[in-house]
């Protein structure tokens, strides 16, 4: 027994799903559609390469991402979602099932009819009743007739049979986040007057008939149903928590082999999986499902990213299988690291929701923390042994520099990182400390780099200012220099501002070099300005944000904009948009709006958090001093952590 298995005895216990034995109690959840496939539903080599990585994660049960079951595409929710309505799709599914079995896991195929969120290529979606969308990027609804319902159940059965013919052991039907099954179950969207609507017994009829039809067709193959423990739509006429559990009992009675408990609808007014939700927040729903449906295995994983927590929950009998997806996007080695007692090496999912932000922009999903995700089919993204081993110097120990350094070291290069400060992290250190959601998530990036740099033997030289003189002192010692010196506030952008010498740099505030007063004006309503403003307001300062654009949070990840806007309102931060800074004085800031109207903002500190400027000067200084000179991250163009990590990795793979 490996040390990690001894420490996490519940998680690594063998399990069972129907007649299939699983080597452990970890289920890879089909939490997210990749958008890697063709517009007409065929699985691509990109997807197959990705699923080979998923198969190798070490999970006992692996759920392949949801396929839509109908030829019209009413169930299709994502532009490049896979289809399973015809035998022509089978060859690629066979490859996926085989790779899951080769890895020793139970193979489950999810069938995803998106219902309310479907019909992406059509001008409509189908639901039990016509309840208009609250998120207008989805299609206008049409009510399903009883004939539609019968046909839809038949299509699910046919898709399930196909999946089994392709080699999958079992099926999963998802009622996640408001998809078709959920919209029948919920009072919010089911307002039918026939036997499929009204009472909870009637609303659950579609689900029971679906379960029954699949089980009758494939009695030997386990069927999993994903059901909401809480819709978070009850304020809007949706199901109460009690009703959600009654529906679980109905599913259990109808013969499902496992219930996967989920939380929230896509249109719910509160967060369910963002990093502002503390890990373990929803565990009580799994525990209730376990009590409500004795004898039915319960899988759960919403906002439960830690294997240690999952092990404890299973040990306490709160659920049976840890269902995990996003943490395995960030680090596909997570389960293996847990088994080998290397959890300190895990690259944590920071809950940026970059994956989902991209999917809902109809783009393939990627991961902030895992630059190779989605590029597994491309050799250019693989960490391979370097043909020529080089001595490499890196300027800057922020995410871009560290990502590069670790990747290049793994390839056999000798890498030394020169950092001006005394720590790994760069500007991220200051901003992470001011994050209102979960600073620990962002700090986990820094800790990961500290651990991996030590593990792989990256040489760290702290307290070193990189400049031409320094470069001359190391002349001919290095083959490659990578400038990853980040970016700074562009104070030159305020050259026209009277009294600009009174401006305080946002970076100095973030890193604690300047303590602002109690009345603060923050110039710039992007992510940096907002992080500073929110943290100061939380400490009791009276804060005004001034933004030249007509809206704040312009550079914030789409799925997190609302969170900043909520904090701004909750913390009472005043916002002046379409406004620019005119002058700074001892009394505060004078700003002018789009119509030229001036406003005095009383402030004892005015913080410049506006445009940033890359620290590019070293490129010119080092140009004739080293064989190869490269740059990555904000040193090329100020953006953020995603670009920093991805560019650092790509350069590390290439150099």
């Amino acid at each position: 027994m490996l040390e990690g298995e001894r420490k996490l005895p519940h998680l690594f216990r063998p399990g069972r799903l129907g007649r299939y034995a699983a080597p452990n109690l970890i289920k890879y959840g089909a939490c997210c559609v990749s958008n890697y496939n063709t517009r007409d539903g065929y699985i691509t080599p990109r997807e197959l390469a990705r699923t080979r990585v998923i198969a190798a994660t070490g999970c006992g049960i692996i759920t392949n991402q949801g396929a839509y079951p109908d030829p019209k595409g009413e169930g299709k929710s994502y532009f490049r979602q896979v289809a399973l309505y015809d035998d022509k799709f089978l060859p690629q599914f066979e490859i996926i099932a085989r790779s899951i079995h080769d890895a020793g896991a139970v193979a489950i195929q999810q069938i995803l009819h998106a219902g309310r969120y479907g019909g992406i290529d059509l001008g409509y979606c189908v639901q039990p009743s016509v309840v208009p969308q609250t998120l207008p990027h989805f299609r206008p609804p049409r009510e399903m007739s009883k004939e539609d319902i019968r046909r839809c159940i038949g299509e699910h059965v046919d898709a399930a049979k196909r999946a089994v013919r392709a080699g999958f052991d079992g099926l999963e039907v998802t009622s996640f986040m408001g998809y078709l099954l959920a919209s029948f179950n919920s009072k919010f969207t089911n307002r039918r007057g026939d036997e499929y609507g009204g009472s909870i017994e009637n609303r659950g009829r579609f689900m029971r008939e679906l379960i029954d039809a699949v089980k009758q067709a494939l009695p030997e193959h386990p069927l999993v149903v994903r059901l909401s423990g809480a819709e978070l739509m009850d304020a809007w006429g949706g199901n109460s928590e009690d009703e959600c559990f009654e529906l679980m009992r109905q599913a259990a009675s109808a013969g499902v082999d496992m219930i996967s408990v989920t939380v929230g609808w896509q249109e719910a007014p509160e967060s369910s999986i963002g990093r502002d939700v503390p890990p373990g927040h929803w565990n009580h729903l799994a525990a209730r499902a376990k009590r409500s449906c004795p004898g039915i295995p319960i899988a759960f994983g919403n906002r439960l990213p830690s294997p240690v927590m999952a092990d404890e929950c299973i040990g306490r009998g709160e659920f049976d299988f840890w269902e995990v997806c996003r943490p395995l996007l960030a680090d596909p080695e997570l389960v293996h690291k847990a088994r080998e007692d290397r959890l300190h090496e895990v690259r944590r999912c920071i809950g940026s929701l970059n994956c989902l932000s991209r999917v809902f922009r109809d783009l393939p999903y990627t991961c902030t923390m895992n630059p190779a995700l989605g590029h597994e089919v491309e050799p250019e993204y693989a960490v391979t042994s370097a043909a020529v081993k080089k001595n490499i110097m890196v300027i800057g120990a922020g995410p871009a520099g560290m990502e590069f350094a670790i990747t290049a070291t793994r390839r056999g290069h000798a890498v030394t990182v020169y950092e001006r400060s005394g720590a790994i992290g760069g500007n991220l250190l200051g901003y992470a400390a001011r994050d209102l959601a979960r600073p620990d998530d962002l700090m986990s990036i820094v800790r990961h780099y500290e651990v991996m740099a030590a593990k792989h033997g990256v040489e760290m030289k702290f307290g070193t200012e990189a400049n031409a003189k320094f470069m001359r002192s190391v002349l001919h010692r290095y083959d490659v220099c990578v400038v990853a010196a980040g970016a700074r506030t562009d104070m030159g952008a305020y050259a026209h501002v009277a009294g600009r010498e009174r401006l305080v740099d946002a970076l100095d505030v973030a890193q604690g070099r300047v303590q602002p007063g109690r009345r603060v004006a923050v110039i710039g309503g992007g992510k940096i300005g907002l992080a500073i403003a929110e943290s100061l307001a939380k400490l009791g300062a009276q804060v005004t944000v001034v933004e030249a654009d007509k809206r704040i949070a312009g550079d914030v990840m789409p799925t997190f904009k609302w969170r900043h806007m909520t904090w701004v309102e909750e913390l009472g931060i005043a916002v002046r948009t379409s406004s620019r800074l005119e002058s700074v004085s001892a009394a505060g800031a004078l700003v002018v709006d789009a119509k030229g109207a001036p406003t005095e903002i009383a402030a004892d500190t005015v913080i410049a958090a506006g445009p940033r400027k890359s620290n590019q000067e070293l490129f010119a200084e080092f140009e004739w001093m080293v064989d190869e000179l490269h740059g990555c991250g904000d040193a090329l163009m100020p953006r953020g952590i995603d670009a920093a990590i991805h560019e650092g990795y790509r350069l590390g793979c290439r150099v």
Partner: protein
Amino acid sequence: MLEDAQRWTRTLEAEAALFEPLRRGARIGLVAEAIVAARPTRASELVVWERVETGMRAALEPYAGFESAAVDLLVALDEDGVRAFEGGREAGFTRTLRRLARGGHALFFARRSRSELEEAGYDDLLYEIGFAYLGTCR
């Protein structure tokens, strides 16, 4: 307040700039959630704000359900939401609506697609009344 169309017209005039980009004929409905959740009766009504040549006009119209509501956007208010607009507290209603949306007390049912709404000039209005708080998978 929801039933007082004249007062709504005055309120809308006070925030006229926000509605200026709306295409003529753009219509927004405001209704109590209790009416949306129940089966509509003959007495069910909604307030409709309509962009007309001269600005915004509010009027009461019968509400017979989602399918027949001739509006681009239907704003449903729960009890707290309705209370927020009672007693002449409609001043600064966009801010109030935003607060209600953020707190889950107002829900927006879109009868048009996002691009249709944007083409009809709703972009700034949607932002101001709190669409940014409504999201997917968060």
